């Protein structure tokens, strides 16, 4: 007899807790899309764990009716790695922000990604410390005036995608809180990847850094500033789809289509390239010279860490019966008469 499985809806994944984000925060959009995507992923709530660090974004687990761990600042990758190794059946998400992931947790993030543990990292990038009420973050722009940089930030910002590509991430994507459809699709693709998937979500903090991504969300200008990456498609963008990106020597160049400039001269996006050079290049695109890419920059395959751990355990078990008494009595032992 077949068991009829319940059909889950977005609300089945939400908890009944009051949400303590400011009204108008971009985090609501990410939460809504996550709840919407999970039923399509087809995994029941009890097999999902959201692990977070500290920050506004890291409140996220409390709002999901799944298992959740609101852990230590920057240390969600370490907890999530242990969790996934302990039970590879679980679907694990790391929810983090630009401060949590790139400042105090910068080290942990790199090691999670290079190990390619099969889990999903969602980094909410609002270029500011929101929870602590508006200090500059590792992604704040130079000159940005905040409570902790009253005469402007001197720090050169980190580019999250460049950082994770340098750690050989196998799935690298970017989306925007305002573009809910694209965000939902990107989150879904991340869940389908085997290995560490990394999604940077450009997220508006309407209280402490309002408009940080306005050039990518304002309907009058966004299409001229954004490049929506599609695997196998030429890199065309613009309000009228009349611009594109091509390689000029080793440098990317924005061109206007028309006349002799045709689509077949443009770069064709291939997210599956084994070498990350093009992905690195894409990650560096910034306005106004080049459009900011969103979508999947890179998706390649590499063995997953937890699988390899369990293979080693199995191999060790096949070689030895694991007799603790024998181990105790091995080496330099003697009998006292």
């Amino acid at each position, binding site marked *: 007899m077949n068991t009829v499985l319940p059909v889950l809806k977005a609300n089945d994944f939400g908890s009944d807790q009051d949400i303590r984000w400011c009204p108008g925060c971009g985090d609501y959009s990410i939460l809504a899309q996550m709840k919407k995507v999970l039923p399509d992923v087809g995994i029941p709530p009890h097999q999902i764990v959201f692990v*977070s660090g500290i920050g506004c974004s890291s409140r996220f687990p409390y709002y999901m009716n799944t298992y959740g761990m609101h852990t230590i600042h920057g240390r969600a990758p370490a907890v999530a790695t242990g*969790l996934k190794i302990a039970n590879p059946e679980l679907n694990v998400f790391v929810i983090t922000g630009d401060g949590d992931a790139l400042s105090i947790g910068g080290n942990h993030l790199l090691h999670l990604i290079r190990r390619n543990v099969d889990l999903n990292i969602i980094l909410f990038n609002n270029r500011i410390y929101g929870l602590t009420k508006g200090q500059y973050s590792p992604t704040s722009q130079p000159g940005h005036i905040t409570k902790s940089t009253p005469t402007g930030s001197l720090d050169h910002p980190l580019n999250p995608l460049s950082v994770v590509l340098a750690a050989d991430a196998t799935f690298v994507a970017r989306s925007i809180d305002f573009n809910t459809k694209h965000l939902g699709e990107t989150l879904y693709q991340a869940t389908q990847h085997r290995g560490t998937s990394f999604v940077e979500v450009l997220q508006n903090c309407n209280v402490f850094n309002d408009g940080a991504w306005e050039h990518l969300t304002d309907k009058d200008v966004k299409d001229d500033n954004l490049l929506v990456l599609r695997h196998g498609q030429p890199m065309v963008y613009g309000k009228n789809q009349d611009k594109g990106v091509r390689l000029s020597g080793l440098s990317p160049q924005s061109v206007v289509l028309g006349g002799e400039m045709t689509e077949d001269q443009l770069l064709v996006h291939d997210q599956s390239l084994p070498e990350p050079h093009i992905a690195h290049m894409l990650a560096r695109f910034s306005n106004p010279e080049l459009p900011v890419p969103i979508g999947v920059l890179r998706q390649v395959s590499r063995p997953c860490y937890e699988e390899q751990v369990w293979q080693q355990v199995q191999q060790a078990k096949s070689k030895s019966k694991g007799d603790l008494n024998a181990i105790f009595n091995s080496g330099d032992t003697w009998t006292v008469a």
Partner: protein
Amino acid sequence: MATRLMTPVMVLSDGYIANGSEPWRIPDVNDLEPIPVQHPAAPTDEAEKFLPYLRDQLLSRPWALPGTVGLMHRVGGLEKEDRTGNVSYDPANHQHMVNTRAQKVRNVNDVVAPPQIFGPPQGDLLVLSWGGTYGACRTAVTHLQQAGHSVSHLHLRWVNPLPSDLGNQLRGFQQVVIPELNTGQLRQLIQGQLQVPAVGINKVEGRPFSVAELVDKIAAILQAREADLAASV
């Protein structure tokens, strides 16, 4: 202890323990005490609400494994409502939970055996020690006892919480001496928490205490004490 009370346990060690060597009797695995761990099962009744912050008699919480049907819950740094584990901003609940967690740690004393005094339970001087100084302290005390001094030894295996009856044990002696390879951390705890005055023998030279060193220093403390008593008569 970590699994019984669902609390982090920190093991303090030192270079002397790590680098020292001594013969050990090899234990039989079958004689080792088991560490029983229980995980709550999925609720049989769907309407049954799992209470992740329900506590047992030692105030320990259930250990629900992620992946178990029906036990979804969230843990983390924000204060939780008693029993339900929902995030709570209620001041009275916060006070209750802080008290509860502190009591849970004190409950360690319900599980571990109290430390035993080596030597008479009353006397002139008690040497109180912890960690890798055990051997030097125990041997020094043995030598002093053999020389006819009224000296006993108490070695702590659990430093926090301090054993419930430690204050009374210490008050059985005229003088408490705490040899430590630091600047006197345990002495601060003892004086601060138990209001028992204590004298430290401290050094931070990267070398352990020698027995002779402790015997000399403890004997000097005893002698100074006797001189004080004689002067006050």
